[in-house]
């Protein structure tokens, strides 16, 4: 099953590498959000420390949702999602493959937004880089897991563009908030509050694991009409 999932993920990434459409537009959109924030809030040191984590995760959420929608739209163009589900591979590998590919895409957005935010707002986001990367990775993974389930379901629905955030955001609130808390702890003054940061990173890990288990259990009953 994992072999097929990897094959499907690699197919997605190969297509993306060829056209780079989603990655460019997502990353640019994320960057734009950061620029807008820079004007929305005055750049004072303590305000920045307080606001930057939230800004980062909101940018990831918005740009991620758009990218998620686009990635699944691709499967809609020639009805290839049907082809994937028809293949004799376990349907869960279709899910895992897409989730892995989406994780990579959203991480690319995070990779753009984080340095930009650090630059424009003079936010010390890289005070503790390793835990930050882990927090971002876990956040992107959780987003991709839940997102892949619902985006697949919304493929043929008419108002899917607005329904995707309506469904995803309430479910993902614990994920984003935990990410914010973790990031906050990592840029705290005078030094990163590592205990707190690891607590919330652990929270993210457990959230991801539960979301994954639940998705594996009900994916087929959700996605097959």
């Amino acid at each position, binding site marked *: 099953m994992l072999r097929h999932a990897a094959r499907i993920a690699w197919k997605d990434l190969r*297509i993306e590498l060829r056209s780079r459409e989603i990655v460019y537009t997502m990353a640019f959109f994320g960057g734009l959000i950061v620029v807008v924030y820079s004007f929305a809030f005055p750049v004072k040191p303590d305000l920045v420390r307080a606001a930057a984590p939230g800004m980062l995760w909101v940018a990831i959420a918005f740009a991620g949702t758009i990218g998620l929608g686009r990635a699944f739209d691709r499967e809609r*163009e020639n*009805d290839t999602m*049907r082809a994937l589900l*028809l293949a004799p591979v376990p349907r869960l590998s279709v899910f895992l493959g897409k989730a892995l590919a989406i994780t990579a895409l959203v991480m690319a957005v995070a990779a753009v937004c984080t340095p930009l935010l650090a630059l424009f707002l003079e936010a010390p986001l890289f005070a503790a880089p390793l835990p930050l990367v882990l927090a971002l990775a876990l956040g992107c993974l959780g987003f991709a897991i839940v997102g892949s389930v619902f985006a697949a379901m919304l493929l043929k629905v008419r108002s899917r563009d607005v329904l995707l955030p309506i469904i995803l955001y309430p479910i993902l609130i614990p994920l984003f908030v935990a990410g914010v808390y973790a990031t906050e702890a990592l840029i705290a003054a005078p030094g990163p509050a590592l205990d707190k940061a690891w607590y919330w990173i652990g929270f993210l890990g457990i959230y991801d694991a539960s979301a994954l288990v639940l998705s594996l259990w009900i994916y087929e009953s959700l996605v097959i009409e």
Partner: protein
Amino acid sequence: MPALDRVHIDKLTKRYGTERALGGVSLELTAGAMCALLGHNGAGKSTLLGIVSTLVRPTGGNVRYHAAGREVTGADVRREIGLLAHASLCYGELSARENLELVAGLYDLDASASSIDVVLDRVGLDLKARDREARTYSRGMLQRLALARALLTRPSLLLLDEPFTGLDRGGALALGAELGALRDAGAIVVVVTHDLEAIAGRTDHVAILRRGQLAFEERGSYSYDQLKDLYHRYAN
């Protein structure tokens, strides 16, 4: 893995929310037979095909697949199914070759260049086009790729949903002949179509759906005029 030789559809019902797409359809499909599924838009043909292809879950009733007397379920059934729809089921950003390599990988088949070329030769896809991205193809070429995709896995149950739309007369007749050949080779072929001319004289089984129910079902071969007459009588 023996090929499917019988599909038993038993009192199939499908509801989408408040709408009933199928209301108790029963049908028996056999190997080496082409079944034409006719009816107006919204009669339930695509839904029926969707359920038989395991992509849609019925609200009531079931579909049973048999091979050499034994029942087949799950992924083993999917392995034997080939689907040809209006959409190409192929990725526009990948070339014909890459698309077929992907399919071969998913179906655990020989993905060597030669075996892929054999199938592409059979459908008549231009040599130079095979390594170009599929979104640069014309409609006719895309149809050929879609057919190649369906044939690559050597399906014993071939399901076709409006395969003749967009094809010119020659293309439609060629596809009809190809389907006849597959039927002769022992496959179960089910064609949903409005193009009675393309399947005239080739069918072994005709079923007409009306508002989700079977209005007519008979085994036999029918000429174009006979099909038109049946359609007018039963599809309304």
